[in-house]
């Protein structure tokens, strides 16, 4: 039986051109007696376009991972996806439901739509945290800030008191990204200070859209304040996504937001810490929460779904059944270990639940072969704890463990975990774009948030925002998130 998959992978990852080196493909083909035809591309617009083209050409893969912004909803409403009801069940995918996704989560993920998309297991641990130059604090005799006021004091000290001791006033407190000048961005601790938590959420049985909430007035006022005091990297607005990390690594700023697990770990050679150390050997970034014990984000929602071609399901349901077996195997401890850490004995050793990695072998057989496990690990996040595994990575330092421990202490709010859909024909792009444009205008030109309620009113009427949020709320009600 031959199966075609379309996956996502990092830009520089590729399956080895010499198929004999691809032990994952061999394992799957042998175990399930199939022939795999795997295509992959970096997730995003190109990925989406390619799949749309394949569908239009009646050439859709049997299974693919959807990476579109709407979580595959458009496809689900357009009659090209297979109904998953007969295929994805607790009986057919025991590992998937046991370790990764609960039936309740799956139900929320569908929202009001038919069961055509199933969530790919995702990272539920939150890694959103602020990082601060501990060595700078030490130079200035300061403590890690624990409240927003203290945080503000530290920013002032970083800007004015020469924390790096080079005799020049060339350092800033905070740096962030405006996504190349598109928006304010959501990195600012000022959101949390004003009670707005990253990503939208349900608060007091009501849907709260963080970016257009009335409290944005306060957020804007506070952002203006730190800007006017010259405490923030003046390039922040034009910084590309990721450029703020570079700025931090250059010693330009002492506080920056990180959202991934390895953001500042020693074990990641391209992390903030590793890059900064190349220039300042004494540098030490540590994770902290400028809001004390307040949450920095809501629980993450499932992101990308896996979907099956309707055509395959109609003509050849056996193919779908076999694919479901393969996916469930990928979600099992065996599949997880193989697609994340390689072959037992060769790339890692295992004693009970303790996994010890062998970085040299991993480098030679996997990273140097196009880092191809990055293609195969599409179905599970790197979270061994769901199986109770303890992974010992020899490259990880005590400092790394410390950082992970302090991130684990930052609380998160519950999320609603469902994909919301704009009403038919709604111009979401123009709505969001206008919102961003006006907020930027308030920060840079008005230098005050006092006009935000006025602009917000225009967004709600002229750009039909009220209709959008009413629709969202009714969807949340239908599923039962809002009572």
């Amino acid at each position, binding site marked *: 039986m031959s199966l075609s998959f379309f996956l996502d992978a990092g830009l520089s990852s590729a399956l080895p051109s010499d198929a004999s080196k691809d032990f994952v493909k061999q394992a799957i083909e042998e175990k399930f007696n199939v022939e795999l035809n795997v295509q992959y591309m970096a997730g995003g617009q190109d990925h989406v376009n390619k799949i749309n083209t394949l569908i239009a050409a009646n050439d859709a893969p049997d299974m693919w991972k959807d990476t579109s912004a709407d979580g595959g909803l458009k496809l689900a409403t357009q009659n090209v996806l297979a109904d998953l009801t007969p295929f994805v069940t607790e009986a057919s995918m025991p590992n998937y439901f046991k370790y990764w996704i609960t039936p309740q989560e799956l139900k929320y993920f569908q929202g009001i739509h038919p069961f055509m998309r199933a969530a790919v297991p995702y990272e539920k641990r939150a890694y959103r945290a602020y990082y601060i130059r501990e060595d700078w604090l030490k130079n200035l005799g300061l403590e890690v800030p624990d409240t927003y006021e203290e945080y503000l004091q530290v920013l002032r000290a970083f800007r004015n008191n020469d924390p790096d001791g080079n005799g020049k006033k060339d350092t800033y407190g905070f740096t962030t990204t405006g996504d190349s000048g598109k928006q304010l961005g959501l990195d600012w601790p000022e959101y949390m200070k004003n009670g707005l938590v990253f990503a939208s959420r349900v608060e007091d049985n009501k849907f709260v859209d963080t970016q257009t909430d009335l409290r944005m007035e306060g957020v804007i006022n506070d952002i203006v304040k730190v800007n006017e005091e010259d405490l923030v990297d003046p*390039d922040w607005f034009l910084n590309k996504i990721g450029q703020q990390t570079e700025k931090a690594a250059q010693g330009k700023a002492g506080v920056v937001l990180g959202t991934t697990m390895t953001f500042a770990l020693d074990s990641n050679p391209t992390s903030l810490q590793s890059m900064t150390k190349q220039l300042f050997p004494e540098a030490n970034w540590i994770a902290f929460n400028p809001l004390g014990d307040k949450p920095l984000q809501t629980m993450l929602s499932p992101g990308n779904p896996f979907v099956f071609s309707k055509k395959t399901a109609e003509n050849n349901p056996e193919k779908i059944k076999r694919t479901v077996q393969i996916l469930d195997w990928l979600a099992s401890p065996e599949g997880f270990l193989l697609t994340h850490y390689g072959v037992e004995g060769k790339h890692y050793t295992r004693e009970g639940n303790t996994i010890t990695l062998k970085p040299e072998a991993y480098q030679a057989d996997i990273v140097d072969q196009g880092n191809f496990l990055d293609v195969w690990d599409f179905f599970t996040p790197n979270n061994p704890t769901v199986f109770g595994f303890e992974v010992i990575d020899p490259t990880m330092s005590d400092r790394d463990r410390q950082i992970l421990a302090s991130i684990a202490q930052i609380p998160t709010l519950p999320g609603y975990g469902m994909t919301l859909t704009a009403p038919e024909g709604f111009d979401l792009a123009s709505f969001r774009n206008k919102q961003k444009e006006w907020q930027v205008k308030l920060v840079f030109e008005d230098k005050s948030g006092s006009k935000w309620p006025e602009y917000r009113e225009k967004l709600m009427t002229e750009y039909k925002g009220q209709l959008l949020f009413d629709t969202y709320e009714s969807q949340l009600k239908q599923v039962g998130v809002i009572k």
Partner: protein
Amino acid sequence: MKTENGIAAGTSGAKGINRRLQPIGRDLLRNRWLYLMMVPGLLYYMIYHYVPMGGLIIAFKDYNMGDGIWGSRWTGFDNFVTVFSSPDFPQLLRNTLLISVYRIVFNMVPDLLLALMLNEIRAQWFKRIVQSVTYGPYFLSWVIVYGLVFSFLAPDSGLISTGWRELTGQSISLLTDKAFFRPLLLITDFWKNTGFGAIIYLAALSSINKELYEAAVVDGAGRWRQLWNITLPGVRDVFILLLILRVGTILDAGFEQIYIFLNARVTEVGDIIDTWVFRRGLEQLDFSVATAVGFFKSVIGFILVLSANRLAKKFGGSGIW
């Protein structure tokens, strides 16, 4: 053309319906080798341009991937209404047209000017070096160009901004300056594409008969007279051809560049139709609206090309046909 037809019709001597058809048949027969020669090219246009053009009908449909292009529901002009009724549309159209016209004036003319200047150079080595060096930037992507611009103009770290700050003590942020955005587009486009654009004129210039200049010198014509009487007529047709084609794309204001240079503080002066379509496509996968915009732009463009060609011929140029 008219005379030729007249002669052909006259000699055919046929009457009635045949009278109109026959000359074409006769023409086909007489010029069969010329027509045969065109067959591969024409087949190419039929297969790879006209057949796919059927896809344009989704501009009038609500495209649904499951039903395909033909099976999707007809919606008439709804997609067009969606575009034109967007509250941002007047601003988008204005920006698109303005930037486009600026580009015709400030970027087509320098192409020609550079070619003319190079043409005045007698030291071949110098000419060759300048020519090869100036079209280098053409091969850089806009992303890289923006990276360079950013390292000069970034409000804090940019070279120019730093220099300005040290000189005047004031900070400067040109990249987010509304008044500077359009000039910035034109300047960078000039820098990136002029060398390349000049080549097409240079080729035309190099095919001008050198003896004309000799003759002109004998006649005592000076440099400017030579330029006016020999050089400029030598590039006139190319210039007009390029102008006609450029006018046809007046609703393309240069998406790739603008998309990369645009930021929220200059949206008012820089947001164009294509960036709007792109944002919409990114959020909503709306093929029908995107196609409707493309169709609208093409119709306007085609009308403009037809008119420009007619104008060109009226004023004595050769036009495209």
